[in-house]
């Protein structure tokens, strides 16, 4: 049975996951530079070892209010096409192995911004994980701002 590894994280109590290959690293960072006039989904910019990285506020992408950037915030840094992009999340979870059989399409009752980000629902023990479409998640122009 083929398995896939997923890196999991939590936003607003919901567990999400992205394929582990897409993740460059995970780290907590506390100094963000706001980008005025940018899409609200852009949390800010930060300095990752000399590289300027844009942090995308996953809460906004899910249709929630903005993440507070006053204290340290967890970043899931994804390998982008040309440069890394970070997703701001609440908490980091484990890396888990998943069988193909554990994936199901998102429920039809799931609507709104979240639906656009989610590609499938994964039945874990005791809770559900939503597998996120990485390209959609970092697309800050998607909400039509």
């Amino acid at each position, binding site marked *: 049975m083929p398995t896939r590894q997923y890196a999991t994280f939590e936003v607003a109590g919901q567990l999400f996951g992205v394929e582990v290959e897409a993740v460059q690293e995970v780290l907590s960072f506390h100094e963000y530079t706001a980008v005025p006039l940018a899409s609200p989904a852009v949390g800010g910019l930060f300095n990752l070892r000399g590289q300027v990285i*844009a942090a995308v506020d996953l809460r906004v992408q899910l249709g929630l209010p903005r993440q507070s950037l006053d204290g340290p915030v967890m970043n899931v840094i994804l390998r982008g096409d040309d440069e890394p992009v970070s997703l701001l999340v609440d908490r980091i979870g484990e890396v888990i192995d998943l069988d193909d059989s554990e994936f199901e399409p998102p429920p039809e009752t799931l609507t709104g911004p979240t639906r656009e980000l989610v590609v499938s629902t994964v039945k874990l023990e005791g809770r559900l994980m939503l597998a996120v479409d990485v390209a959609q998640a970092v697309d800050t122009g998607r909400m039509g701002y």
Partner: protein
Amino acid sequence: MDDLGDIIQEFLVESHENLDQLDRDLVSLEQETQSRDLVSRIFRTIHTIKGTSGFLAFTNLEAVTHAGESLLARLRDGTQPVTADTISTLLAMVDCVRALLSTIEETSTEGDISIDSVVAMVNRQMEQGEAAAAAPEAATEAAAAEAVAEPAPTEVTVEVTVAAETPAEVPAAEAAPARKRAPAKKRAPRKAATAEPEPVSLDASAPAAGPAPAKPPAAELDAPAPAAAEPAAGYEARRPVGELLVEQGAAQQSDVATALQRQIEGDERHLGTILLEEGKTNPAAVNDALQAQNKRSIADSAIRVDVDLLDALMNLVGELVLVRNQLMRSSSESRDPALSRTTQRLNLITSELQEGIMKTRMQPIDQIWSKLPRVVRDLSQACGKQVRLEMEGKETELDRSLLEAVKDPLTHLVRNAVDHGIETADERVANGKEPQGTLTLRAYHEGGHVTVEVADNGSGIDVDRVAQTGVDRGVVSQGQVSQMSPREIMMLVFQPGFSTAKQVTNVSGRGVGMDVVKTNIERIGGAVDVDSERGVGTTWRLSIPLTLAIIQALTVECAGERYVIPQVAVHELVYIDGKSTRIEYASDAPVYRLRGKLLPLVRLDQTLGLSGDNRDEGVYMVVLQADGRRFGMIVDRVLNTEEVVVKALNARFKDIGMYAGATILGDGKVALILDVASLARRSHLTSTTSERTRAAGTDESASAGKSAQRLLVTGVGERRVAIPLDTVTRLEEFERGRIEQAGSRQVVQYRDEILPLVRLADLLGAMADESGDTVPVVVYSERGRSAGLMVDKIVDIVEEATAVRKDLHEDGFAGTAVIQQRVTELLDVRRAILAADPNFYAETSDDEYLVEA
């Protein structure tokens, strides 16, 4: 076959470089027809190409170069004088070689490029030379002498070796001090280090072969080892002047030997001096010899490096600069002396490393200038003008990427100067100038950037004509022009739409207008300026950053965040204390009186959509210039200036258009670099609006900012009439006595023109208030025509987005709105203007100035 491919490749690269040099040398030769040095160099280059092409079996190429070589040999031997025709022929030959090389590069064969005409041309030149009178005796003599000294150009290298082995005449005593001096060339340690022992000892004869008596500064003459102290020394084994003179046929071997003998006997004069004073040679020859002596061999001192590698190194240095900045910051907070010393050291090394790496990417501007003598020559011949091209600061270096970006704009400016700037010889003479015009290219460093000037001593820019053209092309209106300074009018040439297609083909032939020059230069963070005096000349000035990767920047703070402004855009900083320096408001548009002129202000926090406290004191104004417009930007604090490394911003932020990039500040935090030109645009300070802004001059000026939604509210009798502010050029107060009657209409003399007036009260059927001595007039201009609307008073400028009720239509009005709790009629400007001047729109039929109801 692969090997051969490599050889061809190398041959092509080398030949292309040589061809550029050839162009330059040939053009120089036209100026200095007597320079044997140039002829010899040209000869050698052609000879090399000929030799290799023979080896590679490119027969046509060989035939062309052979013909060229024969002609050159005659020039070199002095059997034929250098004339403009000769040069043209040789240039044509070079072009033919270039075409052949390009074909070889593309197809690996010579293709079917015809060489017959060029060969015929060359032969014709030689026949003419034959027919011409015999060369002067002196020349033949010199040629004979040279024939001995320089049997064949290919053997020159052999002679160098010989020279290196024959410092026999130099006494050991003199050689020794020279050896000691050699390591002292600290300026060029690398070069000194690679210098062979022989060349150094050769240098020993250099003091003997001193510089020409008149030309070099006295200091150099007095220096103990003038030759060794010259920066160019050490590139190559330097050949004694005496030997060079003999080789040139400008002195006899025996005379040189005698002179050397005298030096050994204690004559302290330089060899050249001795020979000159005894009449054994001529000053020009000594000069040539000294120049030849300073020639360096590029092959020995340069290597080819992959540009990608340099870029990678540049990036790493950028990182290092950031780390250095961060470390400096933390070490200044700590009290550890050892750490602070180490940091200081790191600081120094980083700066030097950065400088060094940046230098590797730097190339002298001569790289792009080198093509210009040919351009100037060809174009001036085509225009029938005489132009002398002078270059100052060839060695000024620029980042290679910038150099590439500057090439086309610069070429355009040069072509433009020859075509339009410099007059024909007849015109020049008629104006009391020398027939030959001078075009000067000047490059120099100036405060973190390089200034490149293209200056001609031609006719200068005709401001009136520019203004007229600007009006004709709809770039500005007549009214605006009358308000502009000559300098501002000159800047109009940079406006898009100023040059027409016809002009472009005439001037540049490359489809580049002045606006494109400006855009291209601004794209790389530079600026363009022009200065001109009628009849005296024009100077175009390009100001170019040294490099794109690291810029000098001003860090400011606004709404708690720091922003970085490229220093090149910053003109001055003013602290607004609210008393001696204060912000004023024209309606609600902030302005500042900067040396008597109103400067529109932009609040950075507002522009960026941040919540600021809109303070009017205790803030700073940064005077910025972009797109040729000045404006002030209000920020909370000015922090410092420093070098920052520009990081490209992710594409997702490109659409915002406000940021030129990001950088990492000393404390490691990211800061955005503001794009000043976009900022100006975003604040509606672009040329057209700003033009109007300037034209309006007074209070209304700055409020034109968001004129699209702004209304000028006037009072007419008891009624209120609103006029869209963007149709208003100026507000005037005229004395009633000045208003005259012309036929059935009222007019006033205004700026040497007759301004037709209409009384809005009449149009409206309202009772006019005739009480005051003066009457306020709203001046409206379009396409060089103006008309005035007389009102009773100017009430206010408002910016309310009001719901216009269209149904209350009345003649002359476009609608009605509620503004400041009062019903206000929106004027149909077009109708009102027509009432003042029925012919106002005679040539224009667009409705765009109608108020949108």
